């Protein structure tokens, strides 16, 4: 099958490793071959966590600049920072709720305006879905479900060879028992939001 390359960028603690795990499980359920790579050495110390997930026949487990079919950002400035991973056809999904780095807090650098981030992304990758995933995560019952909200939006985009049903099944299998209902709700909220804001 065609190779599809997904990059997820997040700030340490936002749960992108769990999101990757769910997508990996969904790939297994769908009989799609998958490899992932993550850089997470300093995640707990406030650094950026990047996951690369390659679906299909390619053997590499990392993704070169410009070669992502899809970029999902859990944090708007991190999505913008990862623009070099995209080409003009890359589908981009980003949350709009900022997690400003402490460097901005101590006056070393200015966090860009959200509207500015959105237009800088859209100018480069017209296929952009941007919404406040944190609002939906809270609506689902816990800010920690932000990752699953974005997984919902990602599945709605239909870029990856994964169906809504298999990803829901993977969420049931791979997330903590007590959180499954909340995660399914988060998943559906993300899916519907992407439907509503997609171009």
């Amino acid at each position: 099958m065609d190779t599809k390359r997904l990059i997820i960028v997040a700030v340490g603690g936002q749960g992108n490793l769990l999101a990757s795990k769910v997508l990996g499980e969904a790939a297994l359920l769908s009989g799609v071959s998958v490899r992932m790579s993550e850089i997470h050495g300093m995640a707990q110390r406030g650094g950026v966590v990047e996951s690369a997930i390659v679906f299909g026949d390619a053997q590499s487990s990392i993704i070169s600049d410009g070669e992502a079919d899809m970029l999902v950002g859990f944090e708007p400035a991190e999505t913008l920072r990862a623009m070099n991973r995209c080409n003009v056809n890359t589908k981009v999904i980003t949350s709009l709720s900022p997690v400003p780095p402490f460097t901005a807090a101590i006056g070393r650098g200015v966090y860009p305006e959200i509207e500015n981030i959105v237009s800088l992304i859209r100018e480069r990758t017209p296929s952009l879905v941007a919404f406040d995933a944190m609002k939906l995560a809270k609506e689902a019952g816990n800010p920690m479900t932000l990752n699953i909200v974005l997984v919902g939006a990602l599945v709605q985009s239909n870029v990856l060879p994964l169906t809504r049903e298999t990803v829901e099944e993977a969420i049931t299998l791979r997330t903590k028992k007590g959180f499954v209902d909340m995660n399914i709700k988060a998943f559906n909220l993300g899916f519907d939001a992407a439907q509503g804001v997609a171009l």
Partner: protein
Amino acid sequence: MHKLLSDKIGEEIMLLGNEAIARGAIEAGVAFATTYPGTPSSELSLNLFQISKETDLYFEYSTNEKVAMEVAAAAANSGLRTMCIMKHVGLNVAADPLMTLAYIGVKGGMVILTADDPSMFSSQNEQDNRYYAKLAGLPMLEPSSVSEAKEMTIAAFELSEALQEPVILRTTTRINHSSAFVKTGEIKTRNTKGFFKKDQMSYVTVPAVSRKLHVKLLANLKKAAEMSESSIHNFVVSANSSTCNANKLGIICNGVSYLYASDAVKDLGIEDRTKILRIGFSNPMPANLIKSFAKDCQKILVIEEGEPFMEEAVKAFAQEASIFVPISGKNGEEVAPPCISSSSEQTEGCLLPSEQEPLFSRLYEFDPAMVRRKIASFFGIEDTYTHLKPVDTKGIPDIPQRPPNLCSGCSHRATFYEVKKASQGMDVIFPSDIGCYTLGFLPPLSMGDFVICMGGSVSTSCGFSKATDHKVVSFIGDSTFFHSGITGLVNAVFNNHNFTLVILDNGITAMTGHQPNPGVDMTQMNFEGYKPISIEKLVRAIGVEHITVIKPFKVRKSIEAIKEALAFKGVSVIISQEPCTLFAKSIKILKPRPFHITAKCVDHRDCINQIACPSFYIENGRVKIDADTCVGCAVCAQICPDNAILPLKQ
């Protein structure tokens, strides 16, 4: 039951590379494992540690890699299947036993895992540990993928027993930290009862014995070379065997480079014209296999991250066989790959006309597109795969960086602030060491002037204090102090040096993910039967005459105590005791009690300008505290000139 202990055969489970290697070791019946934690190998040890709780596998976090290697060497020579795990720089520490263990050899299979870190995602250098295999004369295996890492671990134990030598299993970060589905195999029964059969003429390495053992080692190495020739880990991939095999484009590669090369050959549509030799048994290199591969290639490109280890061997073999085709790999033009170079002109890389594309660099890790471009350029093939051009990033404003930072409520931040205050006005050099606290070099603390290696803070302090007129104050963590700080301190006392050593004792090996060290109270982790060592008693026993124990969250008291220690002429030691916040939270001995900034704040901003805890943020021009991340260490509250920071009423 631990997920890696599943006895279902043929089950597909998603595993991290490190977990796959741990599973491989379990399937191979590993009975004894030792380590000193180090990224990117840490999860491998962690899994074996957890498994040792549930099974009769013996596992220990040893004091350092040298100790780990020696403990393991004895187990392996008592006939047990043994694994010794470390990051690449750890093998420097363990190099002394390694070199002579190679002479002695082993009885039970012994696998030494070294995790290299090209690009230095979490290391102080990117040394290429393949040279250790060459230096020691030991066989080495290198996997290309997660599933192969599991199979190769099993093969490494078998190879070790066949040769009666330790085998080096060398990974890189992209193997350790990639995930894929791995098929489970049968778990071999562990033999945990060893027996050491005395034989002084084989084990006591006095010169007369070692002269014989070296002969034995070289004979084993010759045997290993024969095994490398026919090893399943060295294989040729050639798309179409019906067409003539001559005049092909040859690629020789190892590790993850094999994956990138395979994808590139496919993407460039040159499968029919290319053949790939994947080297997985890389010491000794398979000379005959390489010669027969090379003789009908029109050109050969060697693709390997790090040093030209294979390239130099391939060139030498070609010379022996009178093969005169162009062979290249690294051509000495060290060009940083685009993802690392800081310039914004990086996207030009893939627009270069093919003849301008330099070959591979010794620097950093590779990526698929880079390998594809260089293959196309070297073989003079048009890179038709250019539709995936990165978007233009010019015009994107600088986004504030997210360097890793000391956590909210980290006790190291408090200690650094206090040492800085106590030494104000003094001309101080601050040698530091390897751990979370290395991050103290970042502004605004800026504490840390010289970092080389584990334990280096103490010994470099000896040098700085003698070579300069500066006051010297150095920092070392508890685990690093046990690892290799003690010998430096003994040196300092004996040679009568003059500096202050601050031991940042947070009661755990924090940076690598909360592993035990000899100072840790193991009952916190529900382990019995350990005897924690008191750093204070140890330092006293060494003969340090000025020892101060501080509680860093008591700011004023700590500063006074530090001032006194700094004034002492000779070696003084400050032990700053406070549990790692992350760890304390995870074992639930710390319940966060967040603070907030009250209306009394007149915006001095000492909190942000002097300690810069990541819980602070600015909203509408005023400093706020994020109650979700503040743990209530109260350090900021103690330094606020207006007493404007108070506990949040809950």
